[in-house]
């Protein structure tokens, strides 16, 4: 009989805390206190996720960078033990084509090279006048309309959606359809059926669009990708997966950064004044980096699996064990950022945040996100210096249940 070891294993499994964890009531901008407690002594610990598996969660800045840059750490979601976000992601593994999201180098390199072209620093800088216009126009419309207004609907969501639609060549008039499917696909708890339905709907939409772009190419990124289908370099489903990824990542993330930053800045009027009263692009760019660090909108944890034993942070991650890289916590690592919970738009090393991830999978659209945020933060408070919340902070609905944090709606008013 071996009751004792079994009992011990059960007991210790029960002590492993569940992930995701809630943020503290009244502290919408800080990481979950239970996670901080769990990783107070070591930069990684075990957590239990939806399928009862107990992957590692990594919160240290240095340890995250080390693991995310380590070729022994894989994003191959087909490997047994991979810590999927939710049941829906796990169920759809065999239906998702290979892409930048689930392949390692060198396979990853081929996909990535196809997607990076529109997002170079210079190309994105050249979009600045366009971004200024799609920032100014919705602000004009909002100011001409009734008060209070929902800033998410009026500005935060349309701005990045218009930009990524134009860049990819996706008809903006379809935005209700793809925004809704994208939003449902990134909830914390998604059933297998719903995941198949939302992924299927988006995928079908993108397949049709890629086929149309192949037949009638235009001057947009999706036409460039479709040309590679025509030449036989990639399949239609791979092209559609790239389009889906760029479309979702291109609007949902920036929209959350805009809405959440407005809340945070209105709660920190001294910091808001720094941003409002400057016309120095370097100050605005620095403010964007600090808000990327401080807000940590990607808070569900990036998912990886160890292909070999890896010694890190005083622990050994065994081959086949899941790894959750909780990017937001690294941005609050006091070893790198002194007084990490303070929003300081003049912080010198803010740029060293992990908000866009690290390693070969770091955000492909990050330069576009930066310019969008520089333009919108630099414009909004100068255009509307009296902007304020129309409801108290504790009435604002935060996206606790989404992989990307933000606000569902943001009632604002002005004089």
């Amino acid at each position, binding site marked *: 009989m071996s009751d004792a070891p079994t009992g011990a294993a059960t007991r210790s499994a029960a002590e492993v805390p569940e992930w995701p964890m809630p943020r503290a009531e009244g502290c919408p901008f800080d990481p979950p206190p239970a996670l901080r407690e769990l990783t107070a002594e070591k930069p990684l610990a075990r957590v239990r996720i939806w399928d009862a598996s107990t992957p590692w969660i990594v919160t240290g800045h240095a340890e995250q960078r080390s693991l995310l840059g380590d070729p022994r750490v894989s994003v191959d979601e087909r490997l047994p033990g991979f810590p999927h976000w939710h049941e829906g992601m796990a169920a759809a593994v065999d239906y998702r084509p290979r892409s930048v999201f689930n392949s390692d180098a060198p396979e990853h390199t081929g996909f990535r*090279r196809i997607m990076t072209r529109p*997002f*170079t620093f210079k190309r*994105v800088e050249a979009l600045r006048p366009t971004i200024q216009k799609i920032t100014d126009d919705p602000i004009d419309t909002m100011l001409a309309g009734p008060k209070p207004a929902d800033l998410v609907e009026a500005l935060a969501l349309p701005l990045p959606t218009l930009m990524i639609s134009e860049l990819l060549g996706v008809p903006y008039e379809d935005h209700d359809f793809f925004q809704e499917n994208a939003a449902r696909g990134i909830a914390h708890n998604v059933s297998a059926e719903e995941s198949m339905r939302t992924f299927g709907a988006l995928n079908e939409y993108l397949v049709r669009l890629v086929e149309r772009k192949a037949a009638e190419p235009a001057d947009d990124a999706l036409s460039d990708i479709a040309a590679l289908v025509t030449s036989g370099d990639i399949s239609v489903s791979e092209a559609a997966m790239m389009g889906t990824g760029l479309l979702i990542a291109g609007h949902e993330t920036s929209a959350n950064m805009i809405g959440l930053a407005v809340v945070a800045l209105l709660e920190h009027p001294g910091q808001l004044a720094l941003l409002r009263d400057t016309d120095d692009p370097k100050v605005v760019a620095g403010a964007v980096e600090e808000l990327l660090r401080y807000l940590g909108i990607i808070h569900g944890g990036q998912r990886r699996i160890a292909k070999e034993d890896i010694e890190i942070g005083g622990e050994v991650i065994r081959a086949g064990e899941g790894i959750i890289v909780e990017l937001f916590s690294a941005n609050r690592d006091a070893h790198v950022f002194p007084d990490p919970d303070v929003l300081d738009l003049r912080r010198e090393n803010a740029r*060293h945040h992990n908000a866009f991830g690290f390693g070969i999978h*770091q955000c492909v659209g*990050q330069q576009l996100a930066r310019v969008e945020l520089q333009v919108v933060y630099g414009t909004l408070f100068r255009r509307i210096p009296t902007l304020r919340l129309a409801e108290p902070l504790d009435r604002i609905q935060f996206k606790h249940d989404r992989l990307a944090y933000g606000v569902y709606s943001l009632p604002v008013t002005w004089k």
Partner: protein
Amino acid sequence: MKITVEQDKCVAAGQCAATAPDVFDQRDEDGVVVLLTDDPPAELADDARDAAAVCPALAIHIAQ
């Protein structure tokens, strides 16, 4: 200062071109790093070091 870059490892995140645009550029067709100078003047040295530090692919190496 002696800078080298590994184009094979580069993932075209654009961090170097954004941090030190006088030292690093990107290939037009896919955004892969292009080194403009391997020995930048002293006033660009800090930016170049910062660019190496933020490169997500660890594709930039700096020797004194």
